[in-house]
């Protein structure tokens, strides 16, 4: 079917401003991705999947500028032993990064990886698979034009987490990063991400977890106000493997985090969770699609959004249970805490189930802080603002608890407390 002219024009305008990187081993995947982008067209406001989030600033040929943000906070994850990999405006920075050597793990730069590379079997492959049944053109665009990224092969469990750190250097930077992570059988790794990446950021992460492998992913987005970001995670899970991802988002004019997970081996576990704190000109979209294609797998989606001063939160979450995926245990909850009447939460929870022996539940709520609880706290001497903050922390607790490591939970809560305290001035 031919694309509408507006879509065609917008897509070609965007493509004409981009240069296809020198290919090497990824050339075929990139060429294929360009063709797919042309065929599907970039997202448009009239697309059903973009009903609640305006995609234009993510698509426009011209990059909306974003002021650099100087944080007064201690760097995230700064207290822990980790392997730092730093990107500035989407370009790997060797000087700020650690030596990429770590026992049990092989790390290569996408822009430099040799011609015969293990990632050839994955780069763009999971992304392509994730285009069905819903098209994700920004991810295909990413596969085609990503200028950098890391290829991480986890062969056995490394002694410390990998920390991908993003830094924003120029007001109109337009970064496209693509990471590939392959976790071998029995290996376990933690990947941390943080930092303002660019004025506009398009990031794709393909994750392949072999049988009994484990990946913990913890991401902090913020506090740069003016950025726009579209991110995708495509994960494929083998038998008895575990994938747990948590994202804390504070501020940001526009953030769309998509997560596409396929449970392909029996007894696999996938948890995707997020908490976001929005104030004013803030639009945050979590779009999740989990496919159960094996037996006895467990998936959880836990999303909490705290919104004030006209902020908008969006959740589109789907659980698809294929006919043979018996004994599926699926859970999905999306909730918003609206701190005033100007903010809004738009949710589209979906279940599509073709197996007959499954337990799937979902729920979505919007509400204000419970007045009775607030009075109870105040009657014990807790000042109004602190009582409100306690209620906010309580509200996001279920999502934060999806992070297994307690010290990371504490760090996340600490960041949120800082955000709340700064709001009080």
């Amino acid at each position: 079917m031919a694309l509408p002219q507006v879509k065609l024009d917008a897509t070609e305008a965007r493509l004409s401003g981009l240069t296809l990187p020198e290919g090497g081993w990824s050339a075929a995947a990139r060429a294929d991705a360009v063709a797919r982008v042309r065929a599907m067209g970039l997202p448009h406001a009239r697309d059903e999947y973009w009903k609640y989030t305006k995609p234009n600033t993510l698509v426009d040929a011209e990059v909306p500028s974003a002021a650099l943000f100087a944080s007064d906070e201690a760097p995230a994850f700064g207290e822990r032993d980790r392997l730092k990999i730093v990107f500035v405006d989407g370009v790997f920075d060797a000087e700020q990064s650690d030596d990429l050597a770590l026992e049990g793990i092989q790390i290569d730069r996408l822009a430099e990886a040799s011609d015969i590379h293990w990632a050839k079997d994955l780069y763009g492959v999971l992304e392509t698979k994730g285009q069905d049944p819903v098209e994700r053109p920004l991810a295909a665009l990413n596969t085609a034009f990503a200028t950098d990224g890391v290829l991480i092969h986890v062969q056995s469990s490394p002694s410390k987490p990998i920390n991908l750190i993003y830094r924003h250097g120029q007001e109109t930077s337009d970064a496209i990063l693509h990471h590939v992570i392959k976790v071998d059988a029995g290996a376990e790794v933690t990947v941390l991400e943080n930092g303002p990446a660019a004025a506009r950021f398009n990031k794709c992460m393909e994750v392949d977890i072999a049988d009994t492998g484990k990946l913990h992913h913890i991401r902090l987005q913020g506090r740069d106000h003016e950025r726009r970001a579209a991110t995708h995670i495509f994960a494929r899970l083998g038998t008895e493997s575990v994938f747990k991802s948590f994202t804390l988002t504070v501020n940001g004019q526009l953030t769309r985090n998509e997560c596409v997970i396929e449970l392909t081996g029996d007894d696999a576990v996938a948890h995707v969770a997020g908490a976001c704190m929005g104030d004013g000109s803030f639009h945050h979209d979590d779009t999740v699609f989990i496919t159960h294609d094996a037996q006895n797998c467990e998936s959880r989606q836990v999303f909490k959004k705290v919104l004030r001063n006209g902020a908008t939160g969006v959740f589109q979450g789907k659980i698809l249970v294929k006919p043979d995926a018996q004994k599926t245990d699926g859970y999905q909850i999306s909730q918003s805490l609206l701190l005033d009447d100007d903010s809004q939460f738009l949710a589209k929870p979906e279940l599509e189930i073709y197996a007959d022996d499954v337990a799937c539940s979902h729920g979505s709520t919007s509400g204000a802080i419970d007045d009775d609880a607030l009075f109870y706290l105040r009657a014990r001497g807790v000042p109004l603002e602190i009582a409100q903050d306690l209620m906010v922390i309580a509200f996001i607790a279920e999502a934060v608890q999806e992070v297994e490591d307690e010290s990371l939970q504490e760090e996340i809560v600490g960041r949120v407390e800082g955000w709340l305290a700064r709001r009080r001035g």
Partner: protein
Amino acid sequence: MLEIKNLHVKLEEEDKQILKGVDLTVEPGKVHAIMGPNGSGKSTLSYVLSGKDGYEVTDGEASLLGEDILDMEPEERAAAGLFLAFQYPVEIPGVGNMTFLRTAVNSQRKSRGEEEMSAADFLKEVRAKAKTLKIDADMLKRPVNVGFSGGEKKRNEILQMAMLEPKMCILDETDSGLDVDAMKLVSDGVNALRDEGRSFLVITHYQRLLDHIKPDVVHIMANGRIIKTGGPELALEVEQNGYADLLEENA
């Protein structure tokens, strides 16, 4: 300690007068009880004194240790020494009991210009006080009142009272939902806090709580007013004859 003069209160949302001129003075170190039939305004009195939204004071005044409290925020009243033990303690999922208690203790101290309690001192004190109320470590760790039985909730109220060391304690039907053993436990907790610098206002339907927490003065409240005041024998009289005679006297 607590002085209430000619207090008139109506519901904000509807034009309904609940308190129609309450006069009450609780002296330091004394235990006053308020009894009365349903709908007489007892719980409203406790809410208005502690600062809950939804009520409008149309006339009269209330002061704690000489300070007008009706214009204060609820947290300011608490810091000034007022404590309400709730008839229905609120469950707050996600807020840990210990976090809540420590935040409350230190908020009050801070607002009074006192030094905050260290984590170690707090822990030591809360453990000791919890033990006498038979509150176990698990209850302390759980979210505030979540999954607590009726008796556990009331014991938790008394633990908060013990930790916050208020000057004026209002107990709103603390006996409701308690079995005999729990009532004794809660009463023992309250009695342990009796002190010449601390006063109590015990709101109850039944005389049996007053067997455990012996009042100095008993008031009967009906139709938004205190209609009779006497000694402990007044509670016994109500127990035997009900409120009908008293109401008739005042009709």
